[in-house]
């Protein structure tokens, strides 16, 4: 698949800066299946636009905005999701 070429660079979700927006490219298969299914239900699908909104006061978790709502993930979970810039 050559679709990764659509993006300038691919990083993991936790590497986004505040207010930076990106597109979800893939899930790392190391993440657990249950979690993946849950994330899919919450809108974490390939092609979805996602923005880092806010890092919690203590540095973790992180609040993201996608599909018109806000959701929080821990850094360790965000690491398993790749996004394209």
């Amino acid at each position, binding site marked *: *698949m050559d679709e990764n070429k659509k993006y300038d660079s691919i990083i993991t979700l936790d590497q986004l800066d505040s207010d930076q927006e990106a597109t979800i490219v893939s*899930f790392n298969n190391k993440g*657990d*299946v*249950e*979690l*993946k*299914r*849950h*994330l*899919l*239900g*919450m*809108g974490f*699908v*390939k*092609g*979805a636009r996602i923005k880092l*909104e*806010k*890092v*919690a*006061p*203590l*540095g*973790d*978790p992180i*609040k993201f*905005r996608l*599909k*018109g*709502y*806000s*959701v*929080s*993930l*821990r850094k*360790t*979970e965000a690491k398993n999701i790749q996004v394209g810039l």
Partner: protein
Amino acid sequence: MNIKIGLAGNPNVGKTTLFNQLTGLHQHVGNWPGKTVEKAEGHLNFENARIEVIDLPGNYALSAHSIEEIVSRVFIVDESSDVIVNVVDATNLERNLYLTTQMMELGANLVLAVNMNKFAKKRDYNIDFKELSTLLGIPVVEIEAIDDTGKDELLRAVKDATNKPIDSSKKLVYGAELESHLKELEKVIKRDISLLDVPVSWTAIKLLEHDKIIEEKVKESKYFLDIFNEVKKVEEHFKDIFNESSEEVIANYRYAFIEGLLNESLKKPEVEEPTISEKLDKIITNRILGLPIFLVIMWLIFQITFTVGAPFQDLIDQGFTLLGDTILAILGETTLSSFIVDGIIGGVGGVIVFLPQIVLMFLMISILEDSGYLARAAFVMDKVMHKLVGLHGKSFIPMILGFGCGVPGMMATRTMEHERDRILTMLTIPFMSCTARLPVYTLFIAAFFTAYQGEVMFSLYFLGVIVAIVVAAILKKSLFKGITSPFVMELPSYKLPSLKGVLIHTWEKAYGFVKKAGTIILAAAIIVWMLSSFPVGVEYGSQDSAIGQIGTVISPVFAPLGFGDWQPSVALLFGVVAKEVVVGTFSSIFGVGEDGAGLETAIHGLFTPLTAYAFMTFVLLYVPCFAALGTVKQETNSWKWPLVMVAVTTATAYIVSFIVYHGGMLLGFG
């Protein structure tokens, strides 16, 4: 005409608000049969129909991910409901419709209720409801759950849908690639008639999603080998062409269907202004202000609970005093009057006095919950909970609820997906000082710490939190080794809580408390009175009475903690029933139920400020009430965990009170 409807939808879409709006006080809360998930049912009359409403748990999907999702699914598949009303949030249609597509897969007789249109309009969203209805093939109604907007239209749509049911799976089309493979899989499934009790296409989809429950069911089939081979074939095929698992492929197609639908029916502005919620969150969960704001909110809750509650408390107290005096005046000093005044009024009245504070506490917790702040609290606190004790930010909400009452707190652990997390959280909840301990604190603080009321109270709550953290950390390193679970949580928009919702919620809890006072606590009060009055001829509540003798036997156990008299021992013994009973027991023993001031004087003879504090610490930490133990049994479906809880709490209480007493002595507070 009788109609039965289920309300389904994502969490935070106003489902429960709609439920309250529809049914008002005609509702009751119970459990789903055989499950520990709360089931709220109610009814209303509309035109000539009696509509029965069932509030389903809030879900993002209908997989076998959590008990809640399974409950909703079983309801849609099995129960004899006429219509499923799917409540969706107009500001977030895309994600909300994901659940809708899954109900359409089941061919449910759906009515879509689009809520929160006011917010959507504020953001310049333009929804074409007619188009949406045509594309989905189901009725779509515009509503506003916080007022009556659209209520009649919704009920009429429900009535029409009851008379003319629709198979909602008709208009649901996934791409040709998926459809054709589903068809092949369906062909194999269709060979077994016993699998056709649910739509065959749904079974096919669930198998591709590796749904455990459906897999178990299919394993019973005599064609199961053929079916699983076909599933495997489709899976490998998807892997080849999409490089994705079949779960992802199906989710993508669902979202693709939704996207196509919304392209036709929803117009959004190109650039979206930040919502008020987002602006508010910039401050409330701010890097620097986040934690202080959180602490201030917690502190305010306690201040309001105690200062606003006090005058009402006095009023109730005076009422009971008057009642007691009147009864004494009419009956004179007899066994009967002693039974009524010392036993019943002393025991139950002494507890009812705390109703104002309990109502206020629940009032504020429901405001926090409905406003959306509780989720922020979890967000702000997750790092602490996670790093420090290996708990989950979501454990924070049940623990906060534990300040009101441990029972709803333990029930709230259901929002957590992992059983072990749930149990660990449940075990720590009893250390969160619930409202039932308030009567004990209030009594002792009034007697010993008048100058520092707020501070002493706050210190006890704080101590409870610290102990909870330490105990959780110890348990995490021993019994619950090596489990971490993800923190995926929606942060709903801030909302002004609806008055009706908050009041109904508070009423339910207050009613529960009064009921407890009327049953368990009354029974305990009667037993205490009897044990205090017998054997015949003894002075009421003296050491010679049955209760005095029991207390005398067990009191040496408590001597190392500084309160080795028989009265506190008896109070603690009965306090296992419910913590309020501790105060009830004291007032019964001293026969001063009709006079609060007398009770303070009486306990002055037994305690010093230091031992009073050690005693309050013990009450804070030891075995929670019967109701809490019963809840743990129910939630975990085994006696193991309630017993573990008894052991953990008793040991903790003994150790911490010991440290408080001896530490205090060393510091010269004795």
